[in-house]
């Protein structure tokens, strides 16, 4: 009698723990998915911003046509890559977005070289928007990576890992800088000479 009671208590504890672990995993899984969607939202925001930016500086920056065109091209490629997005296309999207980031940072460097352009209220505003957008993308990736790491750790740790299969948990991929060029320290030309 006493033995079966103890067995029953152990069983109840195990089941209760299992329910907790399962729910915890599901919770983290959904948080990870949500954090991933947040990156998409911010990328879309950037795509919408760029045409405005280009229009605002087009007249004043006729001499920097190349930089502007690079930005527009990178933006269009990123939009195209995002259109057929799926889990498989994640690498492609990442690469396109990184290209865009690189083009935009080059653009920012160029704008810094022309004080009279920076002084225009419109451009200053757009630069703030651009900074904010880049930050948002960065922070949404950071939040995604943090959540995904938590999720991954949880499903690998004992004894939660025993319930990972039940919760259909699988390791979430972390967002990394895939572009070697971006990983490198940026070379900024400060010679102030007009480019050829």
């Amino acid at each position, binding site marked *: 009698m006493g033995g079966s009671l103890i067995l029953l208590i152990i069983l109840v504890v195990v089941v209760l723990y299992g329910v907790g672990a399962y729910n915890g995993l599901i919770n983290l899984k959904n*948080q990870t998915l949500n*954090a991933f969607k*947040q990156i998409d939202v*911010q990328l879309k925001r950037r795509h919408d911003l760029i045409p405005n930016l280009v229009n605002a500086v087009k007249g004043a920056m006729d001499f920097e046509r190349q930089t502007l065109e690079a930005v527009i091209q990178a933006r269009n490629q990123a939009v195209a890559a995002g259109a057929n997005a799926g889990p498989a296309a994640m690498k492609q999207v990442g690469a396109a977005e990184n290209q865009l980031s690189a083009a935009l940072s080059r653009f920012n460097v160029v704008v810094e070289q022309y004080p009279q352009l920076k002084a225009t*209220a419109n451009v*200053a*505003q757009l630069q*703030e*928007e651009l*900074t*904010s957008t880049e*930050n*948002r993308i960065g*922070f*949404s990736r*950071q*939040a995604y990576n*943090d*959540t995904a*790491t*938590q999720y991954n*750790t*949880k499903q690998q*740790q004992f004894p939660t890992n025993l319930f990972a299969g039940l919760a259909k948990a699988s390791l979430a991929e972390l967002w990394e800088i895939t572009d070697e060029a971006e990983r490198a320290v940026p070379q900024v030309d400060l010679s102030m000479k007009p480019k050829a």
Partner: protein
Amino acid sequence: MTDETGLNLFQQQEANRRRTIWLVIGFVLFFAWLGFGGDLIYWLSTRDGTPNTYHHTIPWFGLLMTAIGAGIARYGFATGPNKVLWSTGARELTEPATDQERQLVNVVEEMAIAAGLPRPRIWVVPDADPNAFATGLDQAKSHVAVTQGLIDLCSRDELQAVIAHELGHVKNLDVRLMTTLAALVGAVALMHDGMGRLMTSGFRSGRGIAGGGGGSRGGKKGGLGQLVIVLLVLWVITWILAPIISQFLAMAVSRKREYLADAMGAQFTRNPMALATALQKIEAAESPTSTIKRGAAHLCIADPLGRRVNLHEGGLSNLLATHPPMAARIARLKGMAYQRLKAEGQFPAA
């Protein structure tokens, strides 16, 4: 960010929820004591009266005070965030008009993304001294307020760091406990002022009745009279100490949290140095934040009253300070920054 911080966050939230409930229960119990204590004293002093004098048998004071306490707690909990914001004279920033305001809105939105929180409502306090606070009862409906001085003084990165610190408070639900506390402390202070006036006038007019009825019997029943006096003294002391007790509570609750929120802020921005320099700037601007009064002081990132007790740790400061010493906070943040740089290999191992 490791799994451990995630677990800690959950525990922090649970602890804050629990503490808020205890705070409310304690508050109502305190009111009940104020009421029933009075009843007990009144009952003891009228018990031996002749049948035709008044016998205080039904504890009306106690019932009334408990009801009042529960009512205030309920009201304070529901309107706490608005009361706090109202007391500082903050205005909500809905339509950013200037570049500065647009930047503030952007920064708050960025940090909300980093913290994984819904965007809080943004308020600006018209005060030249740099300071900031967060309030709200849950993550979905939170408020972040900064002073005009903070916007003027801080760079974008520093502003971001301060907002991240405030969102740290929101994320681990510190705001819930601290806002409830602010509402209740405010209610006690208000009540104390009002009742103090009522009591002094009541004692003056009531002395005639009490003196005539109880005075002669006090000698016969010495033991009972002493009990009544002890109770009475205890009761009056509680009344006098009420605001002081609630102040101690506010202080004890907030000091440890500042370190934690600093750490969370650094985690959101991955830039502890920005918060360190922001704190240095806030510290250097020595004028007190005059618009933020005592009631909301424990919510702020830096003590708005500029009290000297906050300069040290330990001893009297452990009792009286609402904030840890700024130098200690800055030192901790610099330590975090150093660890980061070393981990990234940007710093020669010393």
